Structure formats: C-alpha cells, structure tokens
C-alpha cells in the first residue's frame, strides 16, 4: 500500500516538473503560429500561420546568421573537443609537476563568468585586430569550453581502469597510441556529451556576438532574434517563430545524440 502511494506521489511529482519544463516550450510553439501583431504571448489561439517561419527567416536574416552560427559552432566544438581530450588525458592519466596547480588555474575558466571579462577581452581582441572577425567569436569560446571540456574529460579518463592503460604500455603502445586506440574508443559517450553541451552553449551565445562583431555577415543567429524586439512594440509571433528556428539545430543534435548523451551524463555514476 505504501509502495503504491509512493509510486503515485513519484508520478505526481514527475508530472509536475514535466509540466513546468514543457509549458514554456509549448507556449513558444503555439505563439509561433499565431497571427502576427498580437500584443501578448501565450494569448488565446487565433489561427495557424505557418508563414510566420518564412517571415521570421527573412526579417531576422537567419540565412546569413545561421551560416555564421554554424561556422562558429563547428569551429568551437572541433577545436575545444580536440584540446579538451588532450588536456583531459594529461590531467587524468599522467603525473607531472604542478599538475594540481595547473588544473585549478584551468578551472578558473569555468568559474569566472564571461560578463566579468568581456570588456578587457574586447580591448585585447581589438588590439590584435581580431574584432569583427570569426576569431573574435571562436577563440574566447574555445577558451571557456576547453576549461569545461578538460574538467569533463579528466573525470572520464580517471574512471578508466588503470590496468587498461598499463596493459597497453606493456603491449608496446605509446601514450599517443594508448589515447587514440585504447582509451578514447571507450569514451565515445563522454566525448559526444561534451560536444553536445559545447555546441549548445556556443550556438546560444549572445553577449559575445553582440559585443565583438558589428559586421552583418558575421552575426550569429541569437542576435537575429533582437530584430523582433522593437523599442515600443514586440511581435511575439515572429519572435517565437525566430526562436523556434534558432533552437531547432540544437534540438536536432540533441535528439540524434540523446542515447549517448544520457549514457555520458551517467558515466561514473555507478560502478560498471
């Protein structure tokens, strides 16, 4: 009896939290197909206007912005994945002088918010003549992502049985060979999860793109959403449609990699 009551309570709680998570998503989707010019979001449904997406695409210049987003995100994900794997391997598997100190230094990148460094970062990049280039969007985000990625991959490498690496060493494998042939194939879920997270954060990055680039061609998709917000009025239907366009790639990536993502999140949670 108690078990059943506990079960009901669990479902009730899960249902409640699902509702909290889903309501905004459903709200955006419903608003995205409402008639344009409405004054409030989540209003009473007043039609089904799929043309909102075409209008949002045109007005938000999403063609060019999405291209920029793809260039920046793919570069950041690629570079930071490679660097995180290498740094995580060193911190997770090797013993060297100053290892702890270096690792904590690296963690600073995780702890200091971008808002705190954006102004000096702007001046630094301007001095290097990198503002208004893709590098101004890619390099800072690689820096932030590598801090997280190294932390993440180090945890994975630490979970790999030491005997496996030692067996590879005795079998004649170099450190490099052990990483790519023996250890990393086991870390597919961890690497893919890291890639999804970095992709998501890079794709949704707004502040950096707002500050570092003024060139229309270089702007990323989240900036496009700002066009739908006027000084006095906001077209919520178009804004919602734009939001759906911007969010879709992340959702698609997540759906495709969901299985690995969940497994990656659980890596090390239970003894295998």
């Amino acid at each position: 009896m108690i078990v059943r009551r506990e079960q009901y309570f669990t479902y009730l709680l899960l249902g409640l939290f699902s509702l909290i998570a889903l309501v905004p998503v459903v709200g955006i989707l419903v608003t995205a197909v409402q008639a344009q010019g409405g004054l409030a979001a989540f209003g009473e449904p007043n039609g089904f206007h799929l043309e909102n997406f075409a209008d949002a695409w045109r007005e938000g210049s999403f063609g060019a912005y999405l291209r920029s987003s793809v260039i920046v995100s793919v570069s950041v994900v690629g570079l930071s994945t490679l660097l995180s794997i290498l740094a995580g391997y060193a911190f997770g598997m090797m013993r060297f002088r100053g290892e702890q100190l270096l690792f904590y230094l690296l963690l600073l990148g995780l702890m200091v918010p971008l808002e705190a460094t954006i102004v000096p970062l702007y001046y630094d990049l301007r001095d290097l003549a990198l503002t208004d280039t893709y590098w101004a969007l890619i390099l800072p985000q690689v820096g932030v992502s590598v801090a997280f990625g190294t932390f993440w991959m180090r945890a994975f490498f630490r979970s790999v049985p030491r005997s496996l690496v030692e067996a590879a060493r005795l079998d004649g494998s170099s450190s490099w060979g052990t990483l790519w042939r023996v250890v990393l194939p086991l870390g597919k879920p961890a690497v893919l999860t890291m890639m999804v997270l970095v992709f998501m954060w890079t794709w949704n990055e707004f502040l950096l793109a707002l500050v570092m680039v003024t060139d229309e061609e270089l702007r990323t998709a989240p900036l496009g959403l700002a066009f739908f917000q006027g000084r006095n009025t906001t077209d919520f239907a178009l804004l919602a449609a734009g939001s759906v366009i911007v969010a879709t790639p992340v959702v698609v990536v997540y759906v495709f990699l969901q299985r690995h993502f969940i497994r990656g999140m659980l890596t090390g949670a239970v003894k295998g």
Partner: protein
Amino acid sequence: MAGVTFDGVVKRFGAVEAVRELDLAVADGEFMVLVGPSGSGKTTALRMLAGLEAVSDGRILIGEGVVNAISPRDRDIAMVFQDYALYPQMTVRDNLAFGLRRRKAPKEDIERRVARAADALELGELLDRRPRELSGGQQQRVALGRALVRDPQVFLMDEPLSNLDAKLRVQTRGEIKRLQKEIGTTTVYVTHDQVEAMTMGDRIAVMNHGRLEQVGTPEELYERPANLFVAGFIGSPGMSFARAEVERGPDGVTLRGDGVRLPLPGAGAELPPAVMLGVRPEHARAWRDDGELIGPLEGQVAYVEALGRETFLGVDVGEDTRFVVAVEGRAGEQPGDTLRFGLVPAGLRLFDPEGGAALERAAAGSAAR
C-alpha cells in the same frame, strides 16, 4: 628467455617503505611465486619489474641487463592483470594481436601466433567476440593468450585467478602450470593464496611488510620455515603454536607452557630459556602410547572441521593455546569433548619467541628425536 634479479630493491611511497632491500634471483625458465598477505609488497615488486613503478633504490636485472631506466614496452615482458585488462572495444583476435601490431610484426606472423595461442588456450571459436560477451574464465584465457602471443622473456602474473570461482581456479591453476612448463618462459606470479603458491611455484618467495621472509621450494617452506611468519602463513590449516619454557632436569629437557608439558629427551643445551613450539595438524594425532608420539596433551575440542577425507579438530589445551589435530576420515568428537593427543617428534619446530626465527635445526632435530 632470461632470469630476473632483484638486487637490493627498495620502493618508497613518501615515508612508507613498501619494499625493503629485496634480493631475489629468479632462474631462467623458473616459475617463481611471490606470496604474502595484503600490503606485503609483492604486487609492488612485480610492478617494479614490469616498469609500472619506479625503483627507489637498488637494481632490477632481466638477463644481464639492468632495466631500471628502461620503459615497460622495451623490457620484453608480458603481464596478466588481476582484472585481465582486456581492451573492451576490440575482439578477442584484436586483443591478442594488439601487442604484435604495435611492434610492427609481419601480418602473417601475427596471424600464425594468434592462431597458435588460440589453439593452446581453446579460444578458436571466441576470436570474433568482444570481452563483454565472454565468461570470466574465457576472459582469463584471453588475458593469458595476450601474454602468450608476445613470446616475451618474462611472464608476470598479478593474482590472475582471484576473480574466478573455486572450481575454475583449480582447473586454470593446472593449465597455467602446464603451459609454463611447455614454453619454459621465466614466470613471476603474485598471489596471496598460499595454496596457489604451493601448487604452482617451482620456488616461492614469501613476503611480509615489504620484506622477503624466505625463498625456497614449496617443500622447504612447508618443512623448514625460516620463521614464525612463514610457518604460520604456509599450510592450511596453519601451524599451531605454543609458547613454552625450557626446563632442564636429570631426564633431559621438558617444555612447559600454557597447558603444555612435553618431554624432549636428548634436546641440546643450546636451547634458549623459552621457545615457541610449532606443529602442523598432521603431526598432532590422537594419543597412542606406542612410543611414536610424545605427550600426551589434553584439551577441550573447540571446533570440528570435517573435510571428508580428513577432519581437523581445534583443541584448546590451555587458556591461550590451541592445537589443530588431524584425524583421518570422520572424527567421533564433538565440540566440548575432551581429547588426548600426542605430537610426532619429527614434526616439531622450535622458534625464538622474541624475533620469531627458527632455532638451529640441530636443536630442533635433537628435540624431535
């Protein structure tokens, strides 16, 4: 193939000395077992030989060459790990071939050696499976095979049977021993199980607290333990001990202790004032007054351990002194019964109660007569 020499090898982890001045020579082709309780330094010694731990002091030689500064991959050794350490993403075939591929062996050679190892270990049908699709015993055989295909100078095995069930362990024990004899490769085998050590090793090195206590053949260790630790560690059940004062009278020497009164006719004057008397269960037998036993000793049966072919009785002769008495077949005694028993003189061992060292054989020998 080559022998292995530990020459004054020390391993320190910070202030802790895990291996102390280890001097040990393993002959070419020999099966040497390092045995000892947890924390005795046996695995650390093996890992130093493998190159997986740096040597703090001393030298390790494989053949004639000092290998202290040589990387594990260049030592020409193969190791079987306790958890097998099979590469999970690779098939059995790839696991076996991995080491040869890394060493750029010719393809035909790799195929031939993999096939030979698979044949020797009956892995033929498992070659395309992954480790997770194998039973514990099969995984263990793959781990052995991976070492075998390399045809190294020295095999190292770190408790390779400890994850197997009792029946499979006995079976695999025999297989490893047979394989080692066939190929004749020098093998250093680490275990905490003294039965494994006794049944597998050509010689056994007993370690305790990082120190080498004794090296010898299984028979030597069993019959002539160098000290109390080895005497207690080797043998199952272990040797029974009783502390006794040495009394010298007109009839000779008598050992007198907690519930113990044993005449030792002919014992030498060289015995110290007190000794630790040791006797194995098979040398403690139910009392017969036919002159073959000395005693009698009498005590209360504390436990009865019937193994089928023989029964071990734990008998408390004093407050702190218990002897294990072996009885053939089933014993009629029950816990609480009183038992009279005697000791076979040739089976008595005497130790220094302070340092634990075995007393001169002359003394023990004359005592045993």
